[in-house]
């Protein structure tokens, strides 16, 4: 199946600074892609180029074969801006009704507001909403008209943990109905579990683009093993294994993914001096640090 979003070697200058440099990116139908990067790495700019809100210097972008900014492309795209706000004098129902009429699709406004948990507030003015409620209203308009592509810029900012869970459930449903979802985020632990693929932007350059496990293998970051032992034997053990003391009761060793089992067998052979072992494989946070700092 053809990708919903195809970005080919896109470059963009703002003044003299290059904000995007030869970025290639594709998102397939039903795929959830996390777009990571520091503030100012070019995430929001990339989203704006996909929406056709800002022009690109070089390269090409296609949304279901359409150019960004065309009426056909906009009809297929849903967007959730970062920390969006709406006119405080309107009610949630009125605001969503406007979006439904603009999108040209008949919509079940009440049902959508129920879906994002705003059924109690739909006839209250947006001025009285909390930040999380405004974010939910923003999410409700993403669900209008079954988009082919959803662009979510920091969708979980301002949401409490339960709301975040709800949000990712809704994102999963979107993906299940065939929407290609692009999530720009800082919340690494969330996207780690909830996305299919991860792309990392650094200073406008794409430095990584793969599944989490493939990125881990490629980066070959060490797994950490923490071993707890009886305090009278710990120095001896640490020396024997070659680890680093952390406190009076435990020490730590690091090893690459393929040595992990060998190390475990070696430690198991030490006998009952070892009380406990905990193992920490490299997490997205370590990967992110690895890729976004690499020069």
């Amino acid at each position: 199946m053809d990708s919903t979003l195809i970005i080919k070697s896109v470059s963009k200058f703002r003044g003299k600074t290059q904000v995007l440099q030869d970025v290639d990116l594709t998102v397939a139908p039903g795929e959830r892609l996390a777009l990571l990067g520091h503030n100012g790495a070019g995430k929001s700019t990339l989203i704006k180029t996909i929406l056709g809100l800002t022009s690109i210097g070089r390269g090409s972008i296609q949304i279901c074969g359409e150019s960004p900014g065309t009426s056909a492309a906009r009809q297929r795209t849903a967007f959730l801006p970062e920390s969006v706000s709406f006119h405080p004098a309107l009610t949630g129902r009125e605001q969503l009704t406007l979006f439904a009429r603009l999108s040209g699709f008949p919509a079940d406004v009440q049902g959508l507001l129920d879906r994002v948990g705003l059924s109690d507030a739909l006839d209250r003015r947006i001025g009285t909403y909390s930040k999380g409620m405004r974010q939910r209203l923003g999410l409700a308009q993403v669900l209008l008209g079954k988009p082919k592509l959803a662009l979510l810029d920091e969708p979980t900012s301002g949401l409490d943990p339960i709301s975040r869970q709800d949000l990712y459930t809704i994102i999963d449903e979107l993906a299940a109905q065939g929407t290609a979802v692009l999530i720009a985020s800082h919340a690494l632990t969330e996207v780690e579990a909830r996305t299919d693929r991860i792309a990392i932007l650094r200073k406008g350059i794409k430095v990584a683009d793969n599944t989490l496990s493939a990125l881990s293998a490629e980066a070959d970051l060490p797994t950490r093993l923490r071993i707890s032992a009886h305090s009278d034997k710990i120095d001896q053990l640490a020396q024997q294994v070659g680890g680093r003391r952390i406190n009076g009761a435990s020490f730590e060793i690091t090893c690459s993914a393929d040595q992990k089992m060998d190390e475990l067998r070696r430690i198991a052979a030490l006998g009952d001096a070892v009380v406990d072992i905990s193992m920490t494989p490299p997490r997205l946070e370590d990967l992110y640090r690895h890729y976004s700092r690499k020069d």
Partner: protein
Amino acid sequence: MTPRTLAIAHTELLILRRNRWLFMATLIMVLFALALTFAGSAPTGSLGVDMLTVSVASMTTLSVYLAPLVALMMSFDAISGDVDRGSLSLLLSYPPNRGEILLGKFLSHLAALSFAMVIGFGTAGALAAWSGGAGVDSLLALARLIATSILLGAVFIALGYAVSSLAGSSTAAAGMSAALWLVFVVLFDLGLLGAVVMDQGGTFTQSIFPWLMVANPADAFRVWNIAASDAVAITSGMTGAATALPSWAAPVSLLIWPIIGLALARIAFGRVDP
């Protein structure tokens, strides 16, 4: 006129009603029109015109200041407000293009302004006619005043959008709107007056000055209302400049300006990078 334009116009009208702007604008127009009509009713006897004529002459002077002011107050944050809230990029990600969005906002603001003008001037005119008499000529003058006030307001609604697009924030837009009002309504006339005094009745005063004056929509509004009715002209004491021009000059200026304003607004809005 697309359904999307109408959807935006409908929502903007809802906002104007909800935040009481429609009510405030109408109240301002009614109060000022009534005050001027009854405070300025003294000269009826000496000039031999009915009271509605006097009232229209007073309200013409009022409208030159008030129509642009009310229009700018409605329109100055039409674009910058959306930029401040971060909702403009979202609005622009929907199918309507920038022209449709602008037109939708314009329709609603123009409707609200027209409502305030009709109620404000209509109430004052009706009371003047009831208490001091009216004729066909003065009723026509009242209708002309209302129609031209709406045109003048339309010019400044559109210019307000241009300012709102260029300013980048609502605070800056408010300042720029105040400056715009001051230039068109006060400073332009003062400058022309100074030039006429310096020129001492030379070629500038004879041939250039009237055209320059009518190029300003606020002055075109004044000239149109005065030149079209002898009675209003007598009452307002402003005949000289108006008669120096062909009669089509002021109407053409006031009819073209809303189009110029909307074109400027569209260009400025096109440059907004949300």
